[in-house]
């Protein structure tokens, strides 16, 4: 069984920061066959689930982009970011590799344009639209991954 893991993360009380979570929730609703996890921030214990998956998506808000995007990543210990509370997706992959000797065959960061981080439970209009676009990107990537076997 080829497992897909979707991790959406962010603070749902800080406006667009919730974009990743909203996208993961939509994927869970539309495609319940995928394992979707919503978290406030990435934590070391996710390493085990990642090690058990074949395809992984980390979905996050990104204020530096104007379009949703998918970027393939590989394990990397980000030495300039050594704080475990803010472990990066690349570092989390390294953790999976070093602790469980296993990493997924493909891992993507999905970035969603975000601009408003004030106290709010609402996404900005642009981010709302981008969340839907990001979901489509993820679904297409899952299909294409499954078709490649």
């Amino acid at each position, binding site marked *: 069984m080829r497992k897909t893991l979707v991790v959406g993360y962010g603070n749902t009380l800080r406006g667009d920061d919730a974009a990743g979570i909203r996208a993961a929730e939509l994927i869970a609703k539309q495609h319940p066959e995928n394992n979707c996890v919503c978290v406030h921030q990435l934590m070391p214990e996710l390493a085990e689930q990642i090690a058990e998956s074949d395809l992984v998506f980390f979905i996050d808000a990104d204020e530096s982009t104007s379009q949703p995007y998918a970027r393939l990543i590989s394990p990397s210990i980000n030495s300039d970011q050594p704080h475990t509370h803010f472990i990066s997706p690349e570092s989390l992959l390294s953790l999976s590799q070093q*602790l469980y000797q296993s990493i997924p065959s493909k891992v993507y960061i999905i970035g969603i344009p975000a601009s408003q981080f004030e106290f709010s439970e609402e996404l900005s209009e642009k981010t709302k639209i981008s969340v839907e676009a990001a979901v489509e990107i993820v679904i297409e990537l899952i299909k294409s991954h499954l078709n490649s076997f």
Partner: protein
Amino acid sequence: MSKTITLAPVTRIEGHAKITIQLDENNDVSDVRFHVNEFRGFEKFTEGRLLWEMPGITSRICGICPASHLVTSSKAGDDILAVEIPETAEKLRRLLTLAQWLQSHALSFFHLSSPDFLLGFDSDPAIRNVFGLIAADKEFTKRGIRLRKFGQEIIEILGSRRIHTPWTVPGGVRDPLEPAKKDYMLGWIPEAKETVQLALEAIKKIHKKYQKEIPEFGNFRSLLVGLVTKDGGLEYYDGYLRIKDGNDNTIADKIEPKKYYEHFGEAVEPWSYLKFPYYKQFDYPKGIYRVGPLARVNICDYIETPLAEAERKVFKALSGNVGVVNNSFYYHYARCIEMLFAVEKIEMLLNDPAILGTNVRSMASINRTEGVGCSEAPRGVLFHHYYVNKDGVIQKANLVIATAQNNIAMNRTVKQIAAHFIDGKKGKITEGILNRVEAGIRCYDPCLSCSTHALGKMPMAVELFNSKGELLDKINR
């Protein structure tokens, strides 16, 4: 020329913060400030929301200790409904609170502080993290992750979601516990107990290894505040507030948590968004007090579980004739003792037949317009104070968080460390010294998690200013 050295953000704590170190004309450390840059606007944000929404909303403030806000908010709701919750509901809330302690303490000890201890304060910062730990002791690291996972799994099982679960509510909890889930949780106990014992062995070796550092790590007398049971035992969910001083004198006891505001005030400083709570009778800033593991293990007369009680006695022996362990470095030891207590107590609760009761919620409408909830979050005592109208709409909310209550103490701790380790005449601070200053803050395991975590939102720099405010140097860590 006086200089200010800015270290921002402080790494391996939760949220955004920086430390500035002020040197005087003689290049000696004259002042140190721990700044918190994030504004906790959640109190304002909740105005106009319904009381019943509050547990769900406030638990989303924090990704590290959501269950503590959930439980405390629900307790404030109980007060407003004027209900006594069913026995099973209280036991389930207690279970949730202990699971929160366990996962939070495990993260703090194994992953945030152990890199300093096991790899050394002066080790290469590029490897002084969880990956360095794996290289040094893979099994220890893995066990730490699994211990945290155990706590997380309890939270997930009880609340069906790992974070931000709206499972506890004013009046009790939403759902009873299924027997199969109870058995699953009990299955974790032997491994969890073994892991905590390993942590305790490790911390004792650490005490021997860092005999030079420990005396300068926030070693001062202050008030200590926390909950105790009716007869003075360690408490985490209910009970009374007790205040002791650094000489083991009981300053106040049996304080109703609902009356916290009669005893504690909140000062503000223009250079930090974090409030500075203080004990009113001693005024600000003399009313400095510490909360959390160090305070709790110090002020209680006993711990009800046998293994943790034995460790508490070893801990208390560190105080010599004083009767109180005043050094903030021993927060880590107290944290390990509390992990042991949490595992033992979780086992006791799960073996209690009442945990499977099905009456878990008392229903009522608004009976009071003001309510206070209080519990011990991993970092210390937490208060939620709400005012509502007759329909249960929040008119005003005050959240007194544990991290803020340690604010004066954290500032004093970093000042002591900086003054001891920094030689201003050399005009340079080594990375190892900066790390010691940060490690002083990490003793308290502060949580400032109202921040955003979006990609590209985490700057990281050390800045050096002169007395005119001119930037002399800036380095990225």
